[in-house]
């Protein structure tokens, strides 16, 4: 009996060790606490920004995607320890991986779901594409910088994303043959919103553009195309800041 108990304990220990080793091997273990803290922060920030976003909590599928996609896989080894801090990080070539809070609200604002097709202009590290791929049917992403596009392709393949389609080149004309799209996200710098992108957007769809320099999203511009094809834009501040005080 004692032997059996010891064997049982040994088995449990072995299992637990094996699980631990497995998790460590996946590179997840060191980040679990940081990830939990990050999601708590994002949820809190969204609540505090509800005035501007018109919602007090994130879509559960967006939150699930954020929890699932390993952000540390999208940054250099030297920056992995910062992967779950709520801040943008450099990814080389003068580009950054966006602040998780901004990624969360941009994805949420697209209002997309299963079966949708999303076009992304500016793949960068591929993190935003991976988040979207967890939610929608197909993600089409175009990257203009060859080195970035190739490394994102390799990374996304390694992580097992089969519903992300990458292309190198000019994003101005969108991806005509794969359109129309339910949503378009433009993270590449643009002095204006290209007409081809608007035409490749389905009625009822949205284009989202974070406006601002590297390391900071000044504001989010959302283009809404209604069922009749008319366009309106919304300029959202991803921060709870009311410039006017008192009566006016």
């Amino acid at each position, binding site marked *: 009996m004692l032997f059996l108990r010891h064997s049982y304990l040994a088995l449990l220990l072995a299992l637990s060790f094996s699980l631990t080793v497995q998790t460590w091997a996946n590179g997840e273990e060191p980040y679990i606490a940081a990830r939990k803290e990050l999601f708590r922060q994002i949820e809190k920030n969204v609540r505090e920004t509800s005035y501007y976003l018109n919602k007090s909590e994130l879509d559960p599928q967006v939150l699930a995607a954020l929890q699932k996609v390993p952000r540390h896989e999208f940054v250099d080894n030297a920056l992995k320890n910062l992967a779950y801090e709520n801040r943008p990080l450099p990814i080389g070539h003068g580009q950054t991986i966006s602040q998780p809070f901004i990624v969360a609200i941009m994805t949420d604002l697209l209002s997309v779901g299963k079966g949708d097709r999303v076009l992304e202009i500016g793949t960068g590290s591929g993190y935003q594409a991976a988040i979207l791929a967890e939610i929608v049917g197909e993600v089409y992403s175009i990257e203009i910088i060859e080195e970035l596009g190739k490394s994102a392709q390799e990374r996304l393949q390694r992580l097992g994303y089969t519903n992300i389609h990458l292309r190198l080149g000019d994003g101005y004309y969108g991806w005509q043959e794969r359109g129309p799209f339910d949503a378009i996200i433009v993270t590449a710098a643009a002095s204006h919103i290209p007409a081809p992108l608007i035409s490749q957007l389905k009625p009822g769809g949205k284009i989202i553009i974070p406006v601002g*320099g590297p390391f900071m999203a000044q504001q989010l511009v959302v283009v809404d195309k209604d069922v009749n094809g008319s366009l309106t834009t919304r300029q959202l501040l991803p921060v709870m800041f009311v*410039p006017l005080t008192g009566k006016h």
Partner: protein
Amino acid sequence: MTPHTQSAPCLSALLPGRPATFGATVNSVGGDNNGGLLESCESPQDQAQQRPPLIAIALVSATALAYEILLMRLFSIIQWHHFAYMIISLALLGYGISGTFVAIFHEKLLASFQRKYLSCILLFAVSTSTCYLLAQRIQFNALEILWDIGQLGRLLLIYPLLVLPFFFAASSMAMALLRFRGQSAGIYGADLIGAGCGSIGVIALLYLMLPSSALLVIVAMGATAAAVALIELKMKSVVLPLFILLILLVLILQANQQLLPNISPYKGLAQALRIQGTRIAEQKSSPLGLISVVESPVIPWRYAPGVSLNSTVEPPEQLALFTDADSMTAITRFDGDYSKVAYLDQQTSALAYHLRQIDKALIVGVGGGSGILQAGLHHVGQIEGLELNPQVVAIGKSHGEFSGNIFERPGTTIHTTEARGFISQSKESFDLIQIELLDSFNASSAGLYALHESYLYTVEALQAYLKHLSVGGYLSISRWVKVPPRDSLKLFATALDSLKRLGVESPEKRLLLIRGWQTSTLLIKNGLIAAGEIEILKTFCRQRSFDLAYYPGIKAEEANRYNLLREPYFYQGTQALLSEHADFVRRYKFNIAPATDDRPYFFHFLKPATIPELIDLRDKGGLPLLEQSYLILVATLFQASVASVFLILLPLKFAKHLPGRQRALYRKIFLYFFLIGLGFMFLEISFMQKFLLFLHHPLFAASLVLTAFLVFAGLGSACTKNLSRNWLPEKVLGWALCLLITMSAGYIPLLDRIFALFLGQTILVKMLISIVMIAPLAFCMGMPFPLALDRLGKAAPELIPWAWGVNGCASVISAVLAMLFAINFGFTMVILMAMLFYGVAFFSFPNCADSGC
């Protein structure tokens, strides 16, 4: 803001009298041991008869000042201007450090003067390029500084590297003054002439070559100074060829591309060059900026900011123009077919062309020429374009075939001048004065221009433009849309103030404000807005999905239709400005008080009271609302103050040979030299800005004012020696300060009137008038320093280097402090503060009772 006011000026030059009196009064005896690397076979008699190496001193001074301005240019290209300002300001503490260094080691330094003097010059020459190269290798990311505290550590590595060259230059000067005491007038004259030549020389140099190449000239100038010093000191150096070889080696080693600015990968040019096929086709350097022309044959630029979402026209092929590796604008291919540039009619700035037929337009800020094309598209017969940078105009003309020669088409004239200067001299009236978007969105939205003095958007500027509008004409100003609104509301408030000052009836009936998703345009009419114009306005906006923010009689439901904000902030803001102007400006969380010529900081929106709230929102998307350059200015002040305290206190703690004088004397010396340091820079910076409005061209104004201040302050300083022979120093000081304060006080109300009298004169006459006005003021400003050093030399010569260090540190701090005061209270207040500093300094003058002389 100009290159000369951006950085703290060369201290050896801008603290007149310090070197001269320093050399004249220090009683320590210097001599050579004639050992070491550089041999001298001079006898004691030779030493007595030896003349100071005046040409070498002038060369070192010229090189140091040129190097300072050049570093400012280089770091403006590598990083952004406000970071360059911070880095160079702190590097100038090298002068303060040399004061401390000399205070502690002056006996040892003088024991082998020639060897150490020449070593300093050579180390200065070599360190100019070497330290810059090393500093470039430190991967500092300015944009990440608010996210990553580690970036501060990297910045702390850059500082000492850039301090070194200034430390060596200042130490060589101090040692020469110590060694050749009694000949300080000549040394000081050489120093000033050198500094003057350096400031003018580097301007010419930057027109002739790229900044990286100019750095090699700086090294060569430093090496020449060393070689000249060897000759002047009549030293038989066995290793002179070795030194020259060493310098040549440094030049050759560094010439290989390494000196090219390692531009931040986050700047527009660096990012553009990563796109397949892009290449720099042409680069032109000037002190106003490095212009890079970039081709992108594979993927077009398609630069068309703020174009309506309804536009379907793709911009034609373009060439990108980057200024200091950022702030992109474009030259557009034009073959005479205006339908290909029809997208220019889909911008908010096109509104005025729809309201009436424009026959004569003035385009302010020509850049790549899109404003000229837009005017052409709307059949404007006579177009006058203004562009400050001649290099931009030259590039535009040299690509005439590409751009359809739009700068030279019949009816179009391009003036290379500044807008206020042009307007003040023009007798013409225009149907439209169009002020283009002159800054980039990213830099503007991040608050990178907050320290930038702009006389384009002040109340006085708008008044001047309005006076040059024909009856029924429009002043049209476009800005980037920011949320929450800042520029547009500040501009609206400025327009209201301008119209009120002009005394026109119903200012509120002369304004129109529209906005798209990215840009807004404010129109101010010389006349009342007619009902027909309002109908055209509505149609224009409806067709382009632009929003009405203000027109006389606008209803709340008409605003915020196409580009939706959480609340109709632009409508609310304009209504509030009309109904409760001052109260609304006070309550709004950003600074939207109109900019004036006395406080020309249009781009400064941050209110100190809002900073804690924004810092709290940092990781919640609130970071961009913090104005980076203003915070950098505060950080620079903090760092300079901490470093200065350290530098000022260090000699007192470690220098055992300093006499144990009573505390009162130390306190007086500190107060006096610190206050005159503050006063000098406060006056110099303020008057540089005041004269800029008179001379108009920022480069000419800064060069002229700086040189005039240098030369006349030097003359004032040189005169103190003779004056002190006949009168007590207190009396001379009293008169000098009395005159200085009276003149400063008089200039506050009189300058504008004097400027108005000579407004129509040629630039040469204006320059002469400026010199005549600066001369007596600068002359008096040059006297307080040598007078006190003279007194100190008799009583406590050991304290002279310390006083020098105190004054040097004060000068660095004052450059930053003056800007902070100007931003918050205006330049008139800066002048008043300077008067106060000088007044208090008079009562801190070390008298005989204190010093025991």
